């Protein structure tokens, strides 16, 4: 039993970081906005890491799952607004819908694209993201290009005050819960056969196959898990926090790139990495936009290149190797 618990020690630094962030946000005047942004980036990194970090496959269309999750919540709110009796239940249904829709899309995409490897997979996933966006716009699904604005519906369901509290505070708390959950699932996978199989296939897919590993099965497991979390993040950070959805925004490839940067900065495939990556990325983005507005990307781009070349393992990746075998090493993976 004790052994089972020590296995989950690495969650301690992750949850400590989240707790500190939360406390700073609640107690320090004017910090909540920054904290909310950091929580979003940590959650995004943590969710994407389950696929990108653990399998090594680059999903360039990851944002599509967030987009679909956003639509799931939007659909629940706009279609069920007439059923006033449901109250908060509508939000719960929205989460459920977001999860189902993003998971379904990931099964469809995974069945098709996960047959491809390397660059071909990356290009196929860009294709899925763009294709899905243009299908919504072209066939005018879910209001097409006009998107959906549902501030009024949200107000009607929850009341003006509760709706405002939801978008300025509770939605961010939900993102925190999602991030914590994603971290738990990551560690659970790492400690189970799934994690061993994913490491094997990330390192050498053909060798993994002849070792008896059904690589397709494990890739799909990671893909669906990661995409489901993306759907939940979209439903929360986008649909509940800013109650509107426009196709060009929720399928914007820059979010995928941000997620990749966070995972890479912190250390792909590590548990603590996405937290560190999310914090470094979020804080530098926030302060650059204050002190050097308009120049963030100009400064970021060369830094990213230098980091990829000099520190491909990321912060936690390096730390992990340094601490291997020490007392601290049990906490940092």
């Amino acid at each position, binding site marked *: 039993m004790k052994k089972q618990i020590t296995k989950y020690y690495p969650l301690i630094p992750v949850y400590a970081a989240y707790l500190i962030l939360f406390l700073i946000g609640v107690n320090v005047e004017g910090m909540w906005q920054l904290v909310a942004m950091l929580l979003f980036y940590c959650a995004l990194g943590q969710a994407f890491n389950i696929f990108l970090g653990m399998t090594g496959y680059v999903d360039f269309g990851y944002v599509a799952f967030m987009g679909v999750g956003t639509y799931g919540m939007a659909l629940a709110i706009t279609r069920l607004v007439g059923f006033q009796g449901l109250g908060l239940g509508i939000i719960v249904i929205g989460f459920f819908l977001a999860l189902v829709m993003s998971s379904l899309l990931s099964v469809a995409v995974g069945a098709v694209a996960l047959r491809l490897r390397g660059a071909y997979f990356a290009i196929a996933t860009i294709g899925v993201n763009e294709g899905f966006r243009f299908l919504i716009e072209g066939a*005018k699904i879910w209001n097409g290009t006009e998107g959906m604005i549902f501030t009024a519906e949200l107000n009607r369901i929850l009341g003006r005050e509760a709706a405002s509290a939801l978008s300025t505070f509770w939605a961010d708390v939900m993102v925190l819960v999602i991030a914590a959950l994603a971290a738990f699932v990551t560690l659970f996978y790492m400690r189970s056969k799934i994690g061993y199989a994913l490491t094997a296939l990330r390192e050498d897919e053909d060798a993994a196959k002849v070792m008896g590993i059904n690589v397709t099965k494990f890739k799909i497991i990671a893909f669906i898990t990661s995409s489901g979390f993306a759907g939940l993040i979209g439903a929360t950070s986008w649909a509940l926090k800013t109650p509107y959805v426009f196709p060009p925004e929720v399928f914007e490839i820059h979010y995928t790139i941000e997620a990749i940067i966070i995972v890479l900065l912190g250390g792909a495939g590590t548990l603590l990495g996405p937290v560190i990556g999310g914090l470094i990325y979020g804080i530098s983005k926030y302060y650059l936009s204050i002190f050097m507005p308009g120049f963030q990307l100009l400064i970021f781009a060369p830094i990213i290149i230098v980091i990829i070349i000099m520190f491909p393992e990321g912060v936690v990746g390096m730390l992990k190797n340094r601490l291997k075998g020490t007392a601290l090493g049990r906490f940092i993976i």
Partner: protein
Amino acid sequence: MFSEQLIGNLIQGLVLGTIYGMATMGLSLIFGVLKVVNVGHGAFIMVGAFVTLFLFNALGLNPILAIPVAFIIGMALGYLFYYTTIKRLIKAPELATLLATFAIGVLLEEVIKLIFGSEFRGYNWAVGKVSLGITVLPLSKLYACAGSIIIAVLLYLWFNKTRAGSAMRSVVEDSEGARVCGVNVSGTYALSFALGIGLTMASGVLLTMFIPVGINPYMGGGYTLKAFVIAVLGGLASPYGAFFGGLVFGLLENGSYTIFALIPGVEPFALTRFFSFVMLLIILLIRPTGLLSRK
């Protein structure tokens, strides 16, 4: 009536397709030789467009003369990025080169924005037009089309008649084998990357001759995505495949647009884009070596 319109649009599509093809050859060349997907591809097209704009507006230089200028600047940029970045990442997992080339693209966009600002610009090169009965083509478009074909032919000759060209082809076939046979693989990598970027920048010039307005630091993203589809049509690793992929894409794009425009209650432009990505996925699945390959 409809058939005339369709044929007219298809002619336009074929002409545009030559430029699409030309604008994708660099991407395919770089992938074929280095197995690197240049996600910053469109940004280099954009830089080529700005070179043309600058030479035309500031120096009054004919856009045709901007082609060699952009090509040479592109070669220089290609060498620069190859030796500072790509060379160190060739053996790393795909993620590294995908993100690095994306960052290079962002860097170019931001530098150009810093110099020229982010508003849309254009230039006015009036050289007249020709009528083909069904449709009217400005001469500048025909020049761009001719330029694309000439460059593609020159590249073909260079590949097949020069030592460096055949070294490049052997690396595409089998880089280990080429190394064993005494080909300077790392030199070939550098040259291919530089040549790929040079071609891409030159295609940016041709593109402005076709569409002289709408030049903006962020114009490249859409072309990167189109280039991916075209490259996959042509087999991703073959520059000539890419050229013919461009022709096919130009025809399909204009043809499907004409048809989608007949359907009431849809956005034909967006559906055309949707259709192109559906094609991308289908080809990746059933024929990842491209439509034209014999395998």
